[in-house]
Each structure stands twice: as structure tokens, then as C-alpha cells.
């Protein structure tokens, strides 16, 4: 890949994981590996917004990029396969960020999969209404998937307004929504839409007119989609049409398969030991699931497993010590006379960080 954006993102991520993790863990985050370890790393190091944004990145290509950064002197090799960002690397990153700050709304953790499902619907809805509002009834759907076509057909059937009204409403919702975004994101999203008398523009064409690299156009587009989904989670009532296109996508918390099984039992009112026994799993495995669920679902009964005082204490300690090493945190808390397990520590750190970034 080797784009300016991807190499800067890599520096940014390696800076965050410091020397606690190897680049491999960063690779797992950007490709969206759904293992307990990666999910936890992503949250832990506040890298969850970049989770799953490069699902197709090959490992070899990823390491080529690491090598290149090493050669340029942006990265330095530390012990045990760890890397650190050099002062030169930091300077590069700052310069880039000053010029083109990383898009703020990208949130792969919550929306990577959702936006992949949402975009074809949005595109086809706009494309279809663009034709129908102009009374053009024979046209080729812009998205070829039969699933999406069936979805939009049903969606249209469920609407009560005329096509012109629908198109006008969709326009006003999109216009209001994109207004909130930086111009490059709005232009990237609107540019890739198509309809009657207007084809979609390619990444390369948008890159030329926006004076950005292609990769960055893609990220700006993603930024717009994630922003839309984020806004729809918060204020679905302000955007009824867009919200109806995304409703089922936003409904489900995203968990690994096994964790979702555990979640279901948890919702039935079972506790940790009961779940382990019922599923024939080790306690440790179910604990991993709990940590994952706690970070993802709002209804997790956190305080049944760790008291609010301890949660607060743990967060405080992490801030004071400026460390993410579990053992150091545990020792500090125990030195103050409280008892805390690793499981409780991880639970305490898995939640409530959303807004802090």
C-alpha cells in the first residue's frame, strides 16, 4: 500500500502502543482480527477507531511498510521485536497531522462492518430515487447485489410519500448531515454517489479535484459514513430516512461469535460460573468474553463483578501512573490496601473510555 496516510497512521499507532506490543498487534487491529487479545488491545491503547479499517491488508505488505519506516529513520528497533517512534518520526507525524489532521469521525470499532453494509444501501437509495423522482422507471441499479436490491425495494415500499418528496427529504437529510463534516469528507461521499445523468466519480478523480492522495480520499469517504452512522445512533429522530436505512445495522452490538453466545446467556440472567458450566468453558475464557461484552454492550452488569469504587480507583491509578501495565496498576492498588483481580482490572478498563479518547 505505502501511501502517505497509511505510513502516518502506522507511526501514530506504534506511538500509542509504545513498546508494550509488537507491530503484529497493530496489524491485527487494522485488519480487524476478532480475537479477545486484539479487541482488548484496540480499546486499551485507544486505537479502536482504526480497528478493521484495512481488512485486506496483506501481512507482507504491512511489514514492507514497517521496513520502509525503519529505513527512513522514523522507527527504531527495540528489544524483543518492539519498535519505537523516533523523534524524526514524531516530527513527520506532527507535520502531517497539522496539515491534514486524521479524520475525527472514523470509528472502525463500531462502524467498520456497519458502513460496509450501509454504503451500498445509501448509494442504491440515492440512485433509485434520483431516477424515480424524475419519473425514469427503467434504469440499471447502481449496486449489483440482489440482497441490497431487495432491501431497497422493500424500503421504498414501506415509505408513504411520493418519490419526489422522498428524494427531497433524502436530499435535505444528507445535506444537513454532510454539512457537519469537513468539506473533503462531504465531497468524497457525495462524489461517489451516482444517479440520473450523473455517474459516480473515481477515487483518482476525487483525489485530483480535492488535492489529496487517493488513499486519503477513501478515508475521508469512510469518515463521512462513520459520522453518519454515529449521528444516527445518537439522533435517529432528526434523520428518519437515513435512520430507517441503517436501523438493523445499528441494532446489534458486535461481538466475536463465542462472546455473543455468552452474551445471550448473560442476558438470560446467568452469571459467570453458571455460564462456564453451561458452555463447558474455562472461567478464564468466559472472563475474556465478559471483558469484550463490557466494552461493547451498554447493558453489561459491570458492578456485579467490580464495585464502582474500584472502577474509579483503577482509572485514577492508570492516569496517575501513566502506565498500562496491569501488574503495576494491581500492585499500586493493593499497596493502598484494596484487593483487585486481573479480571476486575480489565473490566474496569474496558468500559467508560468511549468519550475520553
Amino acid at each position, binding site marked *: 500500500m505505502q501511501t502517505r496516510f497509511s505510513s502516518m497512521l502506522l507511526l501514530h499507532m506504534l506511538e500509542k502502543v509504545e513498546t508494550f506490543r509488537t507491530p503484529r498487534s497493530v496489524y491485527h487491529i487494522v485488519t480487524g482480527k476478532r480475537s479477545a487479545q486484539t479487541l482488548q488491545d484496540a480499546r486499551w491503547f485507544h486505537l479502536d477507531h482504526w480497528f478493521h479499517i484495512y481488512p485486506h491488508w496483506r501481512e507482507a505488505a504491512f511489514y514492507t511498510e514497517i521496513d520502509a519506516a525503519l529505513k527512513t529513520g522514523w522507527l527504531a528497533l527495540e528489544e524483543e521485536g518492539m519498535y519505537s517512534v523516533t523523534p524524526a518520526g514524531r516530527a513527520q507525524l506532527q507535520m502531517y497531522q497539522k496539515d491534514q489532521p486524521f479524520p475525527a469521525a472514523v470509528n472502525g470499532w463500531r462502524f467498520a462492518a456497519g458502513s460496509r453494509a450501509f454504503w451500498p444501501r445509501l448509494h442504491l437509495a*440515492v440512485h433509485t*430515487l*434520483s431516477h424515480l*423522482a*424524475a419519473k*425514469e422507471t*427503467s*434504469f*440499471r*441499479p447502481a449496486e*449489483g*447485489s*440482489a*440482497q441490497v436490491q*431487495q432491501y431497497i425495494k422493500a424500503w421504498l415500499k414501506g415509505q408513504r410519500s411520493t418519490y*419526489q418528496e422522498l*428524494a*427531497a427529504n*433524502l*436530499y435535505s437529510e*444528507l*445535506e444537513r448531515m*454532510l454539512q457537519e463534516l469537513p*468539506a473533503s469528507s*462531504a*465531497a468524497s*461521499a*457525495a*462524489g*461517489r*454517489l*451516482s*444517479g*440520473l*445523468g*450523473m*455517474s*459516480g*466519480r*473515481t*477515487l*483518482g*478523480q476525487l483525489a485530483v*479535484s480535492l488535492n489529496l492522495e487517493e488513499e486519503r480520499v477513501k478515508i475521508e469517504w469512510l469518515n463521512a459514513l462513520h459520522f453518519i452512522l454515529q449521528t444516527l445512533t445518537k439522533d435517529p429522530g432528526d434523520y428518519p430516512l437515513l435512520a430507517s436505512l441503517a436501523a438493523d445495522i445499528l441494532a446489534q452490538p458486535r461481538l466475536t461469535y463465542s462472546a455473543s453466545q455468552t452474551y445471550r446467556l448473560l442476558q438470560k440472567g446467568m452469571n459467570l460460573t453458571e455460564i462456564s458450566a453451561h458452555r463447558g468453558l474455562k472461567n478464564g475464557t468466559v472472563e475474556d468474553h465478559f471483558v469484550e461484552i463490557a466494552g461493547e454492550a451498554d447493558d453489561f452488569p459491570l458492578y456485579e463483578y467490580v464495585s464502582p469504587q474500584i472502577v474509579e480507583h483503577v482509572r485514577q491509578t492508570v492516569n496517575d501512573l501513566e502506565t498500562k501495565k496491569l501488574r503495576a496498576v494491581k500492585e499500586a492498588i493493593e499497596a493502598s490496601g484494596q484487593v483487585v483481580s486481573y479480571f476486575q482490572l480489565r473490566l474496569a478498563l474496558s468500559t467508560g473510555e468511549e468519550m475520553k479518547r
Partner: protein
Amino acid sequence: MRMSLEEGLHRFFGFENFRPGQKAIIEDVMHGRDCLAVLPTGGGKSLLYQLPALLSDGLAIIVSPLIALMEDQVQELRAFRMKQAVCLHSGLSQQERKVRLHAIESLKLLYLSPEMLSQPWMQRLLKHQKLSFVAVDEAHCISQWGHEFRPDYQMLGHVLEVFGRPPVLALTATATPAVREDIYTALRMKENARIHLFSLDRTNIRLFGESVMDEKEKQTRLFTILHHFQRPVLVYVMSRSRAEALAERAAEALNLRTAYYHGGMDAADRQNIQAQFLADELDVVICTSAFGMGINKPDVAAVIHYHMPSNIESYMQEIGRAGRSGKDSAAVVLYAPGDENLPHDMMLGEFPPPAAARMLLEDTSLHGALLTEVEKQAQGIGLSEVQARYVVYQLFKAGCFHSTNEMKQLSRPAVENVVRELSDRIMKRRKEKEAQIEEVKAYILFTGCRRQKLLAHFNEETVLQDASICCDHCLAVWPPGSEKVRDREDLSWQGRLQKLLLPDKRSNEKGGFGHE
């Protein structure tokens, strides 16, 4: 009572009359006869199976190697409310396949890629359907003599037997007599099969060839042509990077809407370029051979080859995209000394080193492995996709697989024998391909009538009487034409959204925004 052919033509496609020759083929298909039809690109090929499929009882299978083309045709049919058409290929998810096959009983046309048709589950499914006929598009892919040989096509003859051998319609735009013979045998066509041959002579395309000193002069010449003559124009080049670089320079140098297109672009981008081209939003597309198949744009004014193609068949097919509406158009090939090295190097890259066969055959973990696994492993040892497909197919032909498609364990001498034979075969094939490249070069440097020379390759003669519209050596001049000039469109994002969703804004605008 069944609808007459003319009624069907009118009702489904909105045409009043058949083009010359179409009706005879369609009648043959309706009568369940095996047919081979050779007709030039733009000759209305798809109608030959679409209409009979819609008028017949049962399901027609259309086999095509071009996924984009199949998707395209299905979308087009569906856009005109013929929903009984569906396309399946390996690029689709399980779920998507299920949705598409949901109502198989009511389908009339099922487009399949050859590998999809060779899937056992697909064969089981189709065995229970009443098949009206099977159309094999791009049938020249079946022949090793053809320029686009596809090993999976070779299995078709066998697969058809599984379904009780329904009638077959084989279609191709380019087929020399040797290729026709191969198609005939490979598809096990019946004794009484008909062959419909159409002239490949596209009389409204004037033929030009130009030699230049070097790359730099060639580029200047290309830009001059693009600047002065009518548009839209397709420019064929050999490499992806060259397509991008040339498009960038052309956009800088000329005030034209220019884009590039190649197989390495992301699928949405490729679709966008096609759509823009069809909607007259582009003047010039600089592309590799990946562009063009299935794109039916009637008004392409010229096809320019910036690099020479690898063989005459490809050349015929690519220039056939000019002038489909019947209007005067042109085909130009530019040549600089040494240009033949490009297709030559590319051709060498298609063949695997023969030793790869040894590595595969002696890999104990592959003994008993399925064909597809062996192919995957071939890529694992560093072969390209094309090379891997080639070597595995050759092993298959050399009898290295059981009838269940599992790889045999061969003795040392047997392995060496296979490797030696493969090596000989590759040498022979290389020589053939080198000869094809030489043939193209000879065409470019030829000083007699270009049309005669091209058609001679297909054992044909031209019917064209008028030398002034034939070729440069017959003293034809470039067809005159009006330039379509449009403003470059660079709307704000708000402007785009308005044009997309507010039809009133659209029609109130000065100049309007016509329906294409």
C-alpha cells in the same frame, strides 16, 4: 400459442426488425439444433440467446468467462423488467447466491461462469431443471489456438453430457478455421450442427498504421490525434502504469476529459469509468485490454493502439469497439521500433518454469490433493495465477490426476517424463505466440491494403469497393466529424446532491440536463 419471433423482439427488446442473419440463428436455436455462430463484436450477439431463452420453456444456461459482462447483461435485462435472468459466479457470497437462486423454477436465463458450472452442487441443482439450451459465449476460449485459451472451458463438453446434452449455441467474434474445428470437437457438437459465419469485415472502420521514431514521438503523435480528431476515443496500452501515466499527461496537455482504466483498479472505480464513458462524460479512456468487453457504446469514433496487441484476433476484437452505430470511424495502430518486445515479454511471463511441475508432482503432501488445491499450492511456490492455471491444466492433460480430480503419485521416471513433455510443449507454444506477434508487426509495417491483410487471417476477403474509406494505403482519409465539447464538470458536493435528488433544480438549469 407461442409468440412469434417478431412479436417477442418487439415486446422484449423494442426492436421492429432483426439484423441480417439474426433470425436464422434464433430459429435454429428454437428448433433445438446445435449452432456455431461467428459474428463480429457489436453484431447483436446477446440477442441470439436472450430472445430464444425468453420464448422457450425451461431454463437457458449462458456460459461466459466475463463476470462483468454477465452482470451487465443481467442488470440490463432486469432494467427492462425481464426479471427471469440471474447471474452466478464465484465472486458472490453464499448468501447472495442463495438469494439469486431462490426462484430457480421461474428463471429463463441463468448466466454462469465456467467454474461455477463445474461445481458438483450446481450440476446436481441443474440436473433437475428443464434446460432449453446452453449458450457458450466467447467460445474461442475453448481452443488452444485461440488467443484467450481458458482451461476450464475445455471441461464444458463433459459437463454438458451430465445434463443429457441439451442443444448448444456456441458464439464467438473471432475464429479462424482451426479454432472453429476445436470448438466443434470440444463441445461435441452434433452431426447436423449449423455453422453461421458472418463477415468480420467492419466496413465503416478505416484502418491506419503509423511508424514513429521513438516513444517521445509516439506520445506527441497520440496527443496530436487526440487533439484534432473527433471523440470519444479508446487508447489501448499494454501496462497499467503506462495507462495511468499517459492519462495524466494527456489530461495536462489537452483540454479533454481523460481517464484511465485497468484491471488493477477497485471494482467501484472501474464501474464508474465505464458509466462515465457510456454517459459521454469522458472524451478519452486510456486502458489496458481489460476495458471494452461488454461495453456497448455505439459512438466510439476511434480505437488507437498505443502499443501493439499480441495477436491479430485481439486486434480485431479491440478495434471492433469503434463505430458500432455504423458511422464512419477509425482504427489506428502506432509503432515504434522495439514495440514487439512488450507483448513478447508479457507472453514469456505467462509460462511457468517446467521445473514447477516437478516440484508439484514430488510434493508428497499433494498426493491425493484436488486440482484446485494443487493450483493453490502452485501459487504458493511463486507462480502467478496464469502460470499456476497453465501448469495444473497441463498436468491434468498429461494424466497426472485420477478421474476424481485427485493428483496421482508418480514414479521418478514418470515425473521426469511429464516435465520433459511440458518443457517441449511450452517451447512449441512460445514459438506459436512469437509467430503471432510477428504477424501483428507484419500487419503494421505492411504496405498493401490493410483490410485485405487483416481479413486474410480469417480466410476472408473484403467486400468494400470504395478505396477512399478503406485504409491509409488505399488513400483513405480520417473520417470527418464534429467535436463534442462539454465543459469540465466539477460541481460542489451540494451541487451534486441537488442534481441527484432534486429533479426540479435539474430541469430549471440553463442548458438542461438531458436524459441520456
